[in-house]
Each structure stands twice: as structure tokens, then as C-alpha cells.
């Protein structure tokens, strides 16, 4: 039922870097304009291919954080991995005006469209927020009446990606609930100190039982969060997972 119509063959395209923004000490966002880009579904990712002068290539996958908005651009939020090959290149070398090769959009499961409806529960750890943000932004634009709850865990207040936007959306959007965990920081501004727990899941599902739950983050985070969601009584077949570093 969530299978989208006829996938096209995915070709490599050049994408111009239009904007770069520092989101947190470890995450930068890159707004790219891929040539001949049509659209995508919220939650999808792209494959990036970098080529050295001698022809050596490296590929990685990155989720799209922007909503499918008809702008012809996509926003990637890339966390720098210490000792990594591709993410330090993005953080230290890439400049506005550069061309980056990519193909996509990819992924026909960790997606949300207005016709999928809700309520939806989104659970993100660290940079696992990125595809969930695409879903949240898309929902706000096209189906703001669909109840959405985001449980978002980051190490600290400073490491909350798109923090001001999330807090503003919470203030402005009566159908959006935000539960923030700071796993290695003190509680503040209604944010909970400590890791995601059963209490937060129960709070998230008590008023609006989710039709679909999306969990994204590191492998240990997704294991814990999806096990908690199942233990809270959600049907496993309604829970979709995506693991980073995987």
C-alpha cells in the first residue's frame, strides 16, 4: 500500500551547492540544486558520489531534510564523522558554487505523503532527525490537520538540529507535539534530561494513537526506540525504521 508507482532508472546528476549553513557544532546543511530534478517523497534519500582527479570514487547516502516544495532544490544535513572520508570533505572543503554528483530520490518505505494520513509518531536520535524533518515540514505545508508527535533525542541543547524551527513549530502548530530528550545534558525549557524512555512513548501515544511510526537514528537508538514502541503496544507492522551507519 505504501509502494509508490513505477520507479525510474536513477541517473547521476550534477547538483550545484546553493547555500551552506552551520546547524550545530557537528552538523552543516547544504542546499543543492540537482540538474533536471523533478520531485521526491518526504523521507527519501540521495546517493552522493565524489570523484578524485585520478578517478577514485566514494559514495555515501544522505537523507533529504527539506520538504518536497517545488523549489527544485534539496537540503541535506550532514553530520561530520570523525575520521570519515566523505562527511569531513563536506564540512571542510565544499563551498557555495561547487558541483556535487548525486542520484535519487531513493527509498520507497521510510516515506510519508498526505494520502498516508495520520496520526504520525516520529522518533529521531541525533542526525536521525533529518528524514523526519522532511516529513514534518511537508505535513505542515500540505496536511497540518494531521496530528504529529516528534520525540527527538540529542546529546545536548547545542546539538539539537533545527532547534529554533522546531520550537517555533511547536508554538504555532496546534496539531504538532514535541518531546525533546537531552541524553547528556541537564533538563531545561521543558526538555527532558536523559535518554528516550517508555514514559515519553506512552505520553506520545496516549492522546493520539499513531497510524504509522517512523524511527530513525543510530543502530542502538533505533533498537531501543523501536523496542519501546512495540512494548508500548504499537503494532510492529506500523513501525518503520531507518538506521544510520547502516
Amino acid at each position, binding site marked *: 500500500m505504501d*509502494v*509508490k508507482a513505477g*520507479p*525510474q*532508472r*536513477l541517473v547521476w546528476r*550534477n547538483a550545484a551547492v546553493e547555500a551552506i549553513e552551520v546547524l550545530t557544532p557537528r552538523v552543516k546543511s547544504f542546499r543543492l540544486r540537482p540538474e533536471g530534478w523533478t520531485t521526491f517523497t518526504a523521507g527519501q534519500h540521495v*546517493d552522493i*558520489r*565524489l*570523484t*578524485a*582527479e585520478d578517478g*577514485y*570514487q*566514494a*559514495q*555515501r*547516502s544522505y537523507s533529504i531534510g527539506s520538504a518536497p516544495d517545488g523549489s527544485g532544490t534539496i537540503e541535506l544535513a550532514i553530520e561530520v564523522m570523525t575520521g570519515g*572520508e566523505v562527511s569531513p*570533505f563536506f564540512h571542510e*572543503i*565544499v563551498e557555495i558554487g*561547487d*558541483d*556535487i*554528483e548525486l542520484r535519487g530520490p*531513493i*527509498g*520507497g*518505505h521510510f516515506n510519508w505523503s498526505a494520502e498516508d494520513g495520520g496520526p504520525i509518531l516520529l522518533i529521531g536520535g541525533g542526525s536521525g532527525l533529518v528524514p523526519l524533518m522532511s516529513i514534518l515540514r511537508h505535513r505542515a505545508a500540505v496536511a497540518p490537520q494531521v496530528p504529529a508527535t516528534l520525540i527527538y533525542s540529542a546529546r545536548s541543547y547545542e546539538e539539537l538540529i533545527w532547534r529554533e524551527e522546531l520550537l517555533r513549530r511547536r508554538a504555532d502548530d496546534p496539531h504538532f507535539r514535541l518531546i525533546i530528550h537531552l541524553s547528556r545534558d541537564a533538563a531545561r525549557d521543558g526538555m527532558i534530561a536523559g535518554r528516550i524512555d517508555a514514559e515519553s512513548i506512552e505520553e506520545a501515544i496516549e492522546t493520539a494513537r499513531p497510524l504509522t511510526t517512523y*524511527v530513525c537514528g543510530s*543502530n542502538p537508538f*533505533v*533498537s531501543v526506540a*523501536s*523496542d519501546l*514502541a*512495540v512494548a508500548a503496544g504499537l503494532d*510492529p*507492522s506500523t*513501525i*518503520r*525504521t531507518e*538506521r544510520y*551507519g*547502516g
Partner: protein
Amino acid sequence: MATRGFVGRRPSDEIGNRLPPGQYLTEDFPVLSAGPTPHVKIENWSFTIKNGIRPVAKWNWDEFQKLPHVKLTRDIHCVTKWSKFNTAWSGVMIDDILAEAGIEAPTAFTLAHSYDGYTTNIPTADLIGGKAMVATHYEGQPITPDHGGPARLLVPHLYFWKSAKWITGLQFTSRDEAGFWELRGYHMYGDPWREQRFTDD
């Protein structure tokens, strides 16, 4: 076209020659799945061979353990770009499962079925002839639930989404029927050396 300023970190030839295009070597063992990890108890576990919709053989856990177990050490390649070398599995070769069932593979295509509803399609020729097994152990230990335990399919020469976790059966089909990811934009065959990641690659 070169990417401005990209130098990259080439692996040694020894490693590079074992990496299919677009892959990088990892020492970890990342986990991928479309949903929560099912925790299948071995007392409830069973493995069924079907020809179309007709079951032709079935084993419970204890019966399955009595089938001949062999070791298979192989490099594995995930479509998300990581590869891992020398992964050491043990389990029952598909050849031995069919022999035990007293049948020869009846059709050219197979659909693997998992406890979480996951499916993936593999040509039967890629499962027999010493190419694939139902693995129950990894590095001498029972496979953990996150990695597909109690038993997973192991088809190491194809992208690893073909090595279905939490396997509960193989179904021989008359046509090549797309499985879970194959319906969602991923390649019907998935040869990493031909970089068959997505539909029509």
C-alpha cells in the same frame, strides 16, 4: 568529472580489489531493517519449503539442528555502501535442505519469507550449488536478533538485503516475483560487482 578538492582515502590494492564499485570497508557490523526487530523464540521457530502455495517440507528448530551444519566465510556487501570481509557463518546449505526434503528445486525463482513479513526474491540458481545457506551462527555464536537470529538466509554474492533476516521459509515461484525492497525501487537481482543497486541499474 572530478569533484573539486576531493582527494579521498583509497584503500590498499589488497582491500580495494575485494571491494565492489562504490563500496567501502567497515570493521563494524551495521544493522539494517525496515521495522522493529522481531524476537522469535526457537520453540516457536519453523522453516518451511513451499512449491507455489503448497508446503513440501517443514522443520522445527530441533529438527533443523540435526541437518548437516557447515561453515561459510565470505565477504558481504550492503547496498548502503558498506562491505565487511571474512564474515564467518555456520548453518545449513540450501542444497542440503533440498536433499533432506527429497526434492530438486522445482522452479527457477525463489521468494524468501521472514517472520516480520519481509520478502526478497532470488533466482534459484543463486541459492544452490554451494552458494547459499540458512545461517544459525555467526562467529561461533547464535545469531543475535538484530542480525537476523535465530536464523537468516545467507546469499553472500548478492547485496545483503537478499540475505533475509528472521527467515521462516523459501517459496519456489514460477515467475520472478519482486520482494519487499525490489517493489520499492531496488534491483531484482542485486549483483554488487555490477553495482545493481536500483531498478534497471
